[in-house]
């Protein structure tokens, strides 16, 4: 039925050529770049919330692959541990206990949160450091930590509240879609580790097609509003969800209903950037022009004489 491999292959033991790199960038923060010579097949990760059992294998795999060690956490009364994404924790299972008003059933909604790899990435748009955020033609949005200045603009740019700035090295961190694994033909570590195949990985076309079969299945089980979450407001995403209740994504731990790059960010990084430079240049131009047309304003000897008279013979 499916056209892709559920089971991701094991890593190769011989040296392999990387399948994509700098030549495949379609966007680079604070830079203009030449369009790449080739278009890679758009890839996507599909997260089927209805199949997730909340085991957190994906979180463990993510920490393991990215060589991160989050400090031992505290129980804050929720299964969501750690309680938020962090510079170490790029993915997080967010647990919601939702009572379906139609059936009065408790539904345990478990959404694996993390970077959505937007086709129109707000983080990249906001980033002021050339090359600190890049987007490849296969859809990966990646941070280059060497170039990151730690300003946090990406946090403001992101419609999903994903990037986190490290307090120790002052650089931004988020899911890379395992770009380093993908570069050698592997899939993301989380997808590899998922025991129920709630996380699957393949081309975006395959994932969309697979999602259709899942949605059909969910609808046949009474989830009339089951659907695919691939929000068009950010040009679609390369991490997609199958949701049982796609009509109200906000019940899944505040997944935004129609995410877009904030108009404030668009204004700041669009018109304001040019208007700002133009205003400053305009002021300088006025000064130069005034200098040439009117010239300096000089005190005359007569003024000095007047002052002398006033001080020697105070009139009032």
């Amino acid at each position, binding site marked *: 039925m499916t056209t892709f491999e559920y089971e991701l292959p094991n890593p190769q033991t011989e040296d392999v050529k990387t399948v994509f790199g700098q030549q495949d960038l379609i966007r680079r923060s604070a830079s203009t770049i030449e369009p790449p010579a080739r278009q890679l097949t758009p890839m996507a990760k599909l997260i089927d919330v209805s199949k997730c059992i909340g085991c957190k294998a994906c979180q463990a795999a993510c920490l393991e692959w990215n060589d991160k060690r989050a400090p031992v956490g505290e129980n804050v009364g929720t299964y969501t541990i750690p309680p938020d994404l962090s510079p170490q924790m790029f993915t997080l299972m967010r647990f919601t206990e939702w009572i379906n008003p139609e059936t009065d059933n408790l539904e345990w909604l478990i959404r694996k949160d993390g970077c959505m790899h937007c086709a129109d990435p707000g983080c990249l748009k906001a980033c002021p450091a050339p090359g600190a955020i890049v987007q490849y033609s296969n859809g990966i949005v990646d941070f280059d930590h060497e170039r990151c200045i*730690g300003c946090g*603009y990406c946090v*403001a740019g992101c419609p999903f509240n994903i990037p986190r700035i490290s307090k120790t090295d002052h650089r931004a961190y988020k899911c890379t879609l395992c770009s380093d694994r993908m570069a050698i033909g592997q899939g993301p570590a989380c997808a590899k580790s998922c025991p129920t195949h709630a996380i699957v990985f393949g081309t975006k076309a395959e994932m969309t097609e697979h999602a259709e079969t899942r949605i059909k299945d969910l609808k046949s089980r009474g989830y009339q509003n089951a659907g695919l979450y691939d929000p068009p407001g950010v040009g679609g995403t390369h991490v997609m969800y199958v949701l049982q209740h796609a009509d109200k994504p906000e019940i899944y731990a505040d997944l935004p209903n129609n995410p877009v790059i904030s108009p404030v*960010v668009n204004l*700041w990084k669009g018109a304001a950037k040019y208007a*700002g430079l133009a205003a400053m240049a305009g002021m300088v131009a006025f*000064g130069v022009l005034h200098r040439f047309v009117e*010239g300096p304003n000089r*005190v005359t000897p007569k003024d000095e004489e007047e002052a002398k008279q006033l001080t020697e013979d105070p009139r*009032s």
Partner: protein
Amino acid sequence: MSERYEIDPSDEVHVGERVTVDRYTKAARLNHWLTAACLVLLAISGLAMFHPDLFFLSALFGGGQNTRAIHPWIGVVLFFSFGGLFLRFWRLNLWRPEDGTWMRRLYDVLINKEDNLPELGKYNAGQKIVFWGMSLLILILIVTGLAIWNQYFSEYTTVEQKRYALILHSAAAVTIICVWIVHVYAAIWVKGTFSAMIQGYVTGGWAWKHHRKWLKALVSGKHVDDGKAAPAPAPAGKPGQAAAE
């Protein structure tokens, strides 16, 4: 209006072959130049983070990470330094009736036709607008700046508040740079102005031409040092100053 709204206690006319008028004390000048240095450094580091074409300016601070780290600290120094200037200058920058007249005749100001203008106190309306503009903009910049100072204050604001803080901070920064350009150009344009902030005094002719009401108030208020060591009742009179002149 009482004298304290026309002159600063330390302002003093020195009579002689060439009349000079003390305009800024040494402390005021140091205060001004500290603020000026901060503003210039803030503009350079801020512009590096504002427009990609200007990112290269971050190299002056030792790279992007250092620029990001140091910019807010310079801002804190500027805030307190400007606070000092504000306390020194606010009283004489209060708006007066002649300022409205001056503004209505701004064209005459621009074409160097000063005969048409009212007599002015220590500051003209343009200087007052620069002063109050800087005051307001620095207040906006420090408040929005704290909201986006992620290293220490990221938890205190929501992402949406940070977005508004970022655009307000950028807009206020662009505006203050424009105000700064006006401020610097005016000093270049009106000859004899720089000496006020460098040596601390202007010539009598400069005071007569540009701030006649201020000069007259100094003379009529006996803020005059005629070199005869007369017991002038100047409040901040320094006996040694005349000899040094």
